[in-house]
């Protein structure tokens, strides 16, 4: 019996949340994008797990800063920052809702470590961008962080997609110093991806080459998802009508 499955398992039925990619990808666009990114076998796996990864970029198109400097260093860094926001919030949410605490000790170490790394990435990117940094979006993980299986699979898809994103963007910076810095993120994210795949029981390195992904490709994948949500409105200036 191999330590790892030969490949990703076939797509599973919707988890307890009923939130597989099929549920949100009515026109098949996300699956098609994943097909191109990962190949058909892996895409099949991701159809059940990629809600998180696909959702990554949901907010990427939203911040106005992107449109203002599309293609520039700031634009790319902010794009990466939203990814890091998403990842750090994802792991943090898993911890806060108690999902991680129910995991085995090795999985807890994995989730805590990756969460801490992603948070460090957020901090440094915010520091580099300064006032140009986009605000943290509001995320709705649709229950994925509340279910261990969904959490783990989504983490795999999310880390894989992050590698594809950074591989596609690292060389695009006009400032070579930024390229060098983002490469240091890329290598760490690649290790995250391998660790996540190991944790999930899949081949850590599924293919000989990583295929980079453009911002538009990622954006197209993510736009159809709903991880990035409108923040609930909890304040008002309306005259109270409480009993007094």
């Amino acid at each position, binding site marked *: 019996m191999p330590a790892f499955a030969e490949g990703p398992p076939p797509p599973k*039925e*919707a988890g*307890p*949340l*009923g*939130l597989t990619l099929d549920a949100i990808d009515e026109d098949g666009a996300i699956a098609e994008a994943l097909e191109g990114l990962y190949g058909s076998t892996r895409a099949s796996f991701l159809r059940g797990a990629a809600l998180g990864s696909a959702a990554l970029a949901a907010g990427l198109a939203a911040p106005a800063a992107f449109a203002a400097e599309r293609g520039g260093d700031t634009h790319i860094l902010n794009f990466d920052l939203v990814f890091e926001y998403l990842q750090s919030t994802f*792991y*943090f*949410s898993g*911890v*806060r*809702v*108690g999902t991680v*605490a129910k995991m085995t000790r090795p999985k807890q170490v994995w989730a*805590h*470590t990756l*969460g*801490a*790394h992603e*948070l*460090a*990435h957020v*901090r*440094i990117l915010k*520091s*580099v961008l300064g006032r140009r940094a986009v605000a943290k979006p*509001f*995320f*709705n*993980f*649709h*229950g994925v*962080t*509340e*279910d261990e299986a969904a959490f783990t699979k989504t983490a795999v898809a999310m880390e894989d997609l992050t590698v594809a994103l950074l591989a596609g963007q690292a060389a695009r910076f006009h*400032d*070579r*110093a*930024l*390229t*060098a*810095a983002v*490469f*240091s*993120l890329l290598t*760490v994210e690649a290790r995250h991806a391998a660790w996540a795949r190991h944790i999930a029981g899949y081949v850590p390195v599924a293919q000989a080459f990583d295929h980079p992904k453009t911002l538009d490709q990622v954006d197209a994948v993510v736009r159809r998802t709903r991880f990035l*949500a409108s923040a*609930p*409105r*909890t*304040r*008002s*200036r*309306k*005259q*109270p*009508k*409480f*009993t*007094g």
Partner: protein
Amino acid sequence: MRSFVAAGFVAAVAAAGAVAGLRHYTNDSHAAGPEPTGGRLALVLPEPVKPAFTVPTPKPLSTPAAAAFWAPVARAVVARTAPRADGTAIATLELQTPEGTSNLVAVVADTVTKGSRWLRVRLPVLPNNTTGWVPRVALGGLVPVDTRLVVDRELLRAVLFRNGRRVFTAPVGVGTTQAPTPRGQFYIRDKLTGFGSSFYGPVAFGTSARSAVLTDWPAGGYIGIHGTNEPQLIPGRVSHGCIRMRNQDIARLARLMPIGTPLIVR
């Protein structure tokens, strides 16, 4: 044979370096290229590009699981007595509160029924302390809360805890015996500011609690936590059910208490 291999290796490195625009130095700086064998070749590679930033040492995620959660209502949904579609309907959760803010509920339990996840939530309905089950998909993302506000109607005092530690306390006014502040477990629904009413003071929190006697009150008779224009009445049993605080206290509470905070009235 060995020197031939070495020469070939050096030549390969030299060629690669030439392609890459590297500079090669030998003991004779005017030499056209590296010596094929036996020369003292010093290959000087360019320094790596200095990164624009380096990631600092990560801080551990030491934060434990939260004690309480709330979630916004993502779509109007019927809350039921049991976690299944044929459970008896209790109430419909709308998208908005009477104050025009997003409706939200405190989440107290979860379960999976026939592959679907359900959450048990506190309902802002009468009778107070009612809970009901809603499909997980009807709610937005869970938001953790580490605070808890306890209002003691006997001691006429409110205490805010964060992670079990007391961080705020203040005297309060509560309902009269004719219109008592309801007892039970509720949650903070919204925060109103800038409404320009001295009666409610500078800040008013909406809660999920409702007056059991003022049922025909406008907007449903919800209980608020707010300031006052009569601070001399606090502490006391002076209100129509709302929890009143002196303005400086409610302003301080507003800085400490997030939306979704559980409210315990005893």
